[in-house]
């Protein structure tokens, strides 16, 4: 009975989460209000919203890097009160260790949990191969392009085999072509063992092309989850091809209709500030 209960538990469950920050002038800024969201095991969920709506904040809550002001977070049915040890986090900004080579960066996640160095390096080499950087192991991050650094980051996170993958606009700084290639790479790696993914982006097309579900957030402050769309496009997908399909267009039009209002609102608030 307990076993079935465990499998029914969502990988990530946000229950009525509020996020608030104390401001320098003593006031309180409420970033996110009453967010409730479930990500099932093996499900790929994207959060889309206008700039500054607190998408990344919500991800930090799920990672345990930030504590919610109200509400709670459950990871596979158990309450999260520290760092989320089941999750791998791919950051928007460069998060590689600049003083380590690509290979050392990938291997470090294994080395710190006690895997012998030779074995960790061997597996890191395999992972660099999987992300297409087999020949770049001895390069330092500054010698790699933005896209290559993201690939190393992906390998660094995935080598630990986390059950949950949290991604914060990971391909944001890349150019359009590289984003598409990285998206396909991500889908290919993900389809091998279907982790639960929470993917934050401001790019609706990217969200639809990658996800099983797209969640829309309203403009901040105190932004809320205002829409939850199921993406029924068949898998495996190729991001470039799928964007040409009529189902994609219908879905994109419907969701964009809702998102557009929020984007406009977001701009208005940003200008009024």
């Amino acid at each position, binding site marked *: 009975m307990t076993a079935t209960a465990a499998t029914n538990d969502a990988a990530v469950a946000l229950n009525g989460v509020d996020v608030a920050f104390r401001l320098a002038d003593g006031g309180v800024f409420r970033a996110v209000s009453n967010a409730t969201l479930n990500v099932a095991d093996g499900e790929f969920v994207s959060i889309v919203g206008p700039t500054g709506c607190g998408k990344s904040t919500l991800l930090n809550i799920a990672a345990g890097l930030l504590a919610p002001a109200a509400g709670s977070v459950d990871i596979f049915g158990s309450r999260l009160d520290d760092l989320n*040890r089941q999750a791998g*986090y791919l950051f928007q900004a*460069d*998060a590689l260790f*600049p003083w*380590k080579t690509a290979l050392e960066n990938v291997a470090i996640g294994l080395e*710190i949990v006690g895997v012998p160095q030779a074995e960790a390096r061997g597996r890191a080499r395999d992972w660099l191969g999987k992300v297409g950087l087999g020949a770049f192991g001895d390069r330092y991050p*500054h010698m790699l392009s933005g896209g290559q650094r993201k690939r190393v980051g992906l390998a660094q996170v995935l080598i630990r085999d986390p059950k949950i993958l949290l991604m914060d606009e990971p391909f944001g700084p890349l150019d359009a072509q590289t984003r598409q290639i990285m998206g396909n790479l991500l889908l290919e790696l993900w389809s091998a063992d279907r982790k639960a993914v929470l993917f934050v982006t401001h790019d609706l097309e990217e969200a639809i092309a990658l996800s099983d579900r797209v969640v829309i957030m309203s403009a901040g402050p105190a932004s809320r989850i205002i829409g939850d769309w199921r993406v029924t496009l068949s898998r495996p997908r190729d991001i470039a091809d799928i964007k040409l399909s009529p189902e994609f267009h219908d879905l994109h039009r419907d969701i964009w209709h809702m998102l557009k209002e929020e984007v406009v609102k977001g701009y208005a608030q940003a200008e009024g500030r």
Partner: protein
Amino acid sequence: MSRVSLLSLQIAVAVVFVAVWYVFTTYPVFGHILLPPFFFSNPVDVVQQVISWFASGVIWKHLWVTLVESMLAFGIGSIGGVLVGFWFARQPRTAAVFDPYVKMANALPRVVLAPIFTLWLGLGIWSKVALGVTLVFFIVFFNVYQGVKEVSPTVLANARMLGMKERQLMRHVYWPSALSWMFSSLHTSVGFAVVGAVVGEYLGAAAGLGYLIQQAEGVFDVAGVFAGMFVLAAFVIVIDMIVTVVERRLLIWRPAVGDAKP
């Protein structure tokens, strides 16, 4: 500019400088010498002095003493700076308590400490080492403190999400970051170690380049003073070149200035 033309221009500057110096200290202009040799010596005497020091071998002892003092000052000052820098950066409360005293000590012109060190440690090398340490310590301390404080929050969050415990964060994140800051100030701190040694020698010693210059000055031997200065300058340039080589090896992971990517 090509390497060759750059080098030839650099040499030209030296040649013109020495030529002007030589002409104005040797030949009268409108009846009198513009740079009296008593005050300005002249290039020939200075070169002769340098050659005689090296020919007789007396200079080696003084160079060795200054080198030992500088290296000891650099080593002890760096170790102290790293330890205290780390300690303060990880213990903000301690840092806050000591902050005014650190600022006070750093604001103090270190030369005034020299007599105290001579009194405490005698005329041997240790009073000079102590003076160098007070200079090197603060440079290394401030840089290590900054290095630990300014670790990128994203890199730190990433390290924690990868499962690093406090000790591993020390080893894989704080330590390399602090070291990179320390190494970036290597030129300055090595330079200050030499300054500490030479100034200490100048104020009271029995050997060393500072002592040599002070002795020459005491008998109005201007050629000796200039010769000492030139040997000292050459000594510092050689040390600086060694530091550059060491730095290149240690900071291989850092982008060279100018090709930093966003």
